[in-house]
């Protein structure tokens, strides 16, 4: 039986790992991630979770050990901000080795303690899948789904599920904990992704031979990862609807969540807790008769470009909120990705961009309402400058 408990976001993350029956956890403290591994340590101390838990000497080693452990057992690690940057080097190896490791990232700025999305954005091209969460329930649910998506044979890529630090990590709200038997039925036991045991030497050597075969196109490593990441879009949708059947909850189609987007002229686009704040802003605006909805990006990698093409054909303007910046390029990272997705449309909507919430700067309902109003103005064909602004 599922049960409810009031818990902080970090505990919800720990529950996800526990319910997935992870067998290896590598831990290293960094605010605001630390209590995840503390909760897991408690769960193991109480006999609720049977896993090997290792206190590593740094995040680089956390990532490296969880990577090799994932050749054999379901593995998990977690980090934040600068810790994630320290993992960057082995993260590329984890995708090269195609190991379905799952990691939780509690967003922390790379320049300060407060949250923004620069930590995961800095890992954008490592080849990891990345799923954003808006609340603690979504963290728990997405964590469980992440294992299933990552381990799917059509995907087999390491996966990050993530949420904003402090706003989620240390804030309590009621969370439904699914029953273990139901999670077991939803998420099958871990399958070793390839031969690594000594008695499998012959098979393993063949794989190594392929890896280093000079007659194979050297670009294949990336090409295959790209195919897998693109395949993931289908798998994410499947897993999302299967999860809904089992547990009665879903987050859009798993790639984007469209909130009150029927018959709207414009939509605000956001990720993470800004999207959850935006829901209140949209409620208030629609109550006042404003025809503006919300699109929450659920999957950042793979990027839901098909969904944005569909949505872009239906609205006249999109106001994109980016909790990040790619300096030297006009506009934030999801703004750039969305404009890229929209390019092939015959009639493209106007696109506006707002840098907001960097280094933990608060993004309030009123801020989002103002952004939405500006987007509506653009939808009416009025002049709205600047195109990209710092909110």
């Amino acid at each position: 039986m599922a049960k409810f408990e009031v818990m902080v976001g970090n505990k919800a993350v720990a529950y996800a790992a526990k319910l997935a029956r992870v067998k290896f956890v590598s831990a290293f403290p960094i605010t605001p991630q630390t209590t995840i591994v503390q909760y897991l340590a408690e769960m193991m101390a109480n006999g609720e979770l049977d896993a090997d838990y290792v206190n590593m000497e740094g995040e680089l080693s956390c990532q490296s050990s969880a990577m090799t452990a994932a050749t054999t057992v379901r593995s998990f690690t977690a980090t934040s901000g600068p810790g994630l940057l320290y993992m960057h080097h082995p993260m590329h190896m984890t995708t090269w080795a195609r190991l379905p490791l799952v990691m939780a990232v509690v967003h922390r700025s790379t320049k300060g303690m407060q949250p923004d999305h620069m930590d995961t954005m800095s890992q954008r091209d490592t080849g990891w899948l990345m799923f954003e969460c808006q609340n603690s329930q979504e963290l728990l649910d997405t964590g469980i789904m992440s294992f299933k998506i990552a381990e799917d044979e059509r995907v087999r890529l390491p996966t990050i599920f993530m949420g904003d630090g402090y706003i989620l990590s240390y804030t309590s709200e009621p969370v439904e904990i699914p029953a273990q038997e139901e999670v077991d039925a939803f998420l099958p036991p871990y399958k070793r992704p390839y031969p690594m045991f000594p008695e499998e030497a012959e098979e393993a050597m063949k794989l190594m031979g392929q890896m280093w075969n000079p007659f194979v196109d050297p670009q294949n490593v990336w090409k295959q990862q790209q195919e897998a990441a693109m395949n993931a879009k289908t798998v994410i949708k499947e897993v999302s609807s299967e999860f809904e059947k089992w547990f009665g909850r879903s987050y859009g189609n798993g790639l984007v969540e469209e909130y009150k987007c029927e018959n709207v002229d414009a939509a605000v686009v956001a990720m993470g807790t800004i999207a959850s704040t935006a829901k209140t802003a949209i409620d208030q605006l629609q109550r006042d008769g404003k025809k503006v909805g919300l699109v929450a990006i659920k999957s950042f990698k793979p990027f839901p470009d098909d969904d944005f093409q569909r949505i872009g054909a239906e609205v006249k303007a999109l106001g994109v909120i980016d909790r990040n910046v790619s300096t030297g390029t006009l506009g934030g990272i999801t703004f750039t990705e969305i404009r890229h997705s929209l390019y092939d449309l015959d009639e493209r909507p106007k696109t506006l961009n707002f840098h907001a919430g960097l280094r933990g700067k608060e993004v309030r309902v009123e801020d989002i309402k103002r952004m939405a109003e500006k987007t509506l103005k653009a939808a009416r064909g009025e002049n709205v400058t600047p195109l990209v602004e710092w909110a």
Partner: protein
Amino acid sequence: MMSKPVPLSKLDEKEFILPANSACQGCAGSIVARIVSKVIGKDMVRQEVACCGPAFGNITQPVFYGEVFEGAGAMMTGFARAFNKLGRDDIRVTGIIGDGGTIDIGFQGLSASAERNEDMLWVCYDNEAYMNTGGQRSSATTKYAETTTTPVGEFSRGKKERKKPLPILVGVHRVPYMATASVAYPEDFIGKLQYAKPVKGFRFIQVSAPCPTGWRFDPMYSVKVAKEMVLSGLWPLYEVVEGGLRITYKPKELKPVKDVLRSQGRFRHITDEEVDEIQAEVDGFWARLLEKDGGPLF
């Protein structure tokens, strides 16, 4: 408990290393790989990191290639923990790692794995520089050696600093097993590997592996140079078992270091005073080892 020398003839004839490789002529590292693979054999899962290993280590056991140069300790931790979790503690997680990946960039992971007493066998083949990238100085390089990043010139005498005393550093972690070995003394090396193989926990062997390419001597003399290093005290053979030190090969009298230094192009420039300085260093260290022999390391 201690290791006992094992003659080469006692080793299984089966080879776990393919007969051809792309190592340099006279590569002592490939001797290390061959001996380790014969002793650990079919129980081995190997970790590799950036080093000459990919050139000579064509061992027919599963291997995880480590793009992560600094990650040997952590990656072997992941393997050992995961295998043990599945009840596969018969698998011997083995690293054949160069001196850079052990003593420099890999040092944090080495020390941490030793501290946690992870179940792994870490064999460092020490060629005293980053030989795979063309012979750059490492902290394992001997003082005054010329490397491509410590060239000798009007204002430079080669490497300025002493070699990092890694075996002692690992020994003071009080790991189950720590030893030095040399390709010139395979019986001693095999004995140490056979002792270490079944031991649970962290085991470390640092093997002297002279590099003709980087040290600049005729490739036919790799084993001879290694032997002279042992006989002169430049590379003492000893082991530390749970904190207790034992010299495993004791020459009656040490040969002067001068000849073995002078036989290598990398020391061609050194003066008699510089030789004397190294000699004093070696004599001092040997005297301390003799003092500690049969007793605790610290």
